[in-house]
């Protein structure tokens, strides 16, 4: 038997193994928690007033206190990742995380951040595809290719 099959390295792109959180991108908009069909995303936050040195007035931002995904409920539909407007959630192909206690299947912020290290780079576009929108926006003189 092939022991390397037990790892996630050989899996095709966009394989759904576990969900990773990039906390810096999260604005606590709550869309993922609201759209999740299983109600398995737990978010707690509070508001914080920030006065930047050169800002004209103080601004209020949301501070994330808790972001947890309960993988005992998760059905890996990906709605949270699709709906996130700020690209804070990512798919990772890792699948080997069984637990002896069901509470261990609720991954908190730190563990979700650790999964970010296993998120593969996005697969390349097909040959002949128009360039990504980010590249088009960066060089407006190039013009639309498709």
């Amino acid at each position, binding site marked *: 038997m092939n022991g390397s099959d037990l790892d996630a390295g050989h899996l095709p792109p966009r394989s759904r193994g576990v969900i990773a959180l990039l906390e810096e991108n999260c604005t606590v908009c*709550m869309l993922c928690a*609201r759209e*999740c069909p299983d*109600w398995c995303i737990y*978010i*707690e936050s*509070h*508001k914080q007033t920030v006065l930047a040195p050169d800002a004209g007035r103080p601004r*209020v931002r949301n501070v994330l206190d808790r972001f947890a995904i309960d993988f005992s409920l998760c059905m890996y539909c990906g709605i949270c990742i699709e709906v996130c407007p700020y690209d804070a959630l990512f798919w990772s192909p890792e699948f080997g995380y069984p637990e002896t206690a069901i509470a261990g299947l609720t991954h908190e912020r730190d563990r979700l951040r650790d999964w970010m290290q296993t998120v593969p780079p996005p697969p390349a576009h097909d040959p002949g595809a128009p360039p990504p929108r980010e590249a088009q926006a960066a060089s407006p003189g190039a013009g639309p290719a498709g």
Partner: protein
Amino acid sequence: MTGAQLLAGAARHLPSARCAAEEGTVTMEVPREDWLTALTFARDTAGCDFFDWLTAVDEQDHGLAVVVHLYSIEDQQHLFVRTLVPPDDPVLPTATPLFRGAAWAERETHEMFGVVFEGHPDLVPLLLPQGFEGHPLRKDFPLAARATQDWPGAREPGEPAASARSRRRLVPPGVPEGWPPA
């Protein structure tokens, strides 16, 4: 029978039927008293002798619509036969004398919607456990878990967990207005 022949045959044999035809499919709506006549016509005259499924649709105030999907293998013609039973008297004659396969479908429709099929040989629950109360697929049967479980999306962005706001909290999708009762 082809679709066109079906429509013509229905006009002749089932004057009370309202028919609509699409590519390969005919939908026939009949009043309750013509239910068995329509199914007999479908099987014996129209050649739709393959029974696919039978189920119901909760039309709420209008009643319960019972739908059967029949198919003619020879003519590759689909036929949907619909009828409406009133909500206070959801009784319909059983289709089992015509289609043996309707037995289990009617058992399931009975336990899920509460339609009583007169003459059914064994109208007992099929899928629900013993002692289950209510008819789950009716629209007025709410999913209790959605109303009693705390919805993670009920909080607003930036609202702390121990918030004492008296503002009415967001209701999760799938929970009817005013449920659970206080």
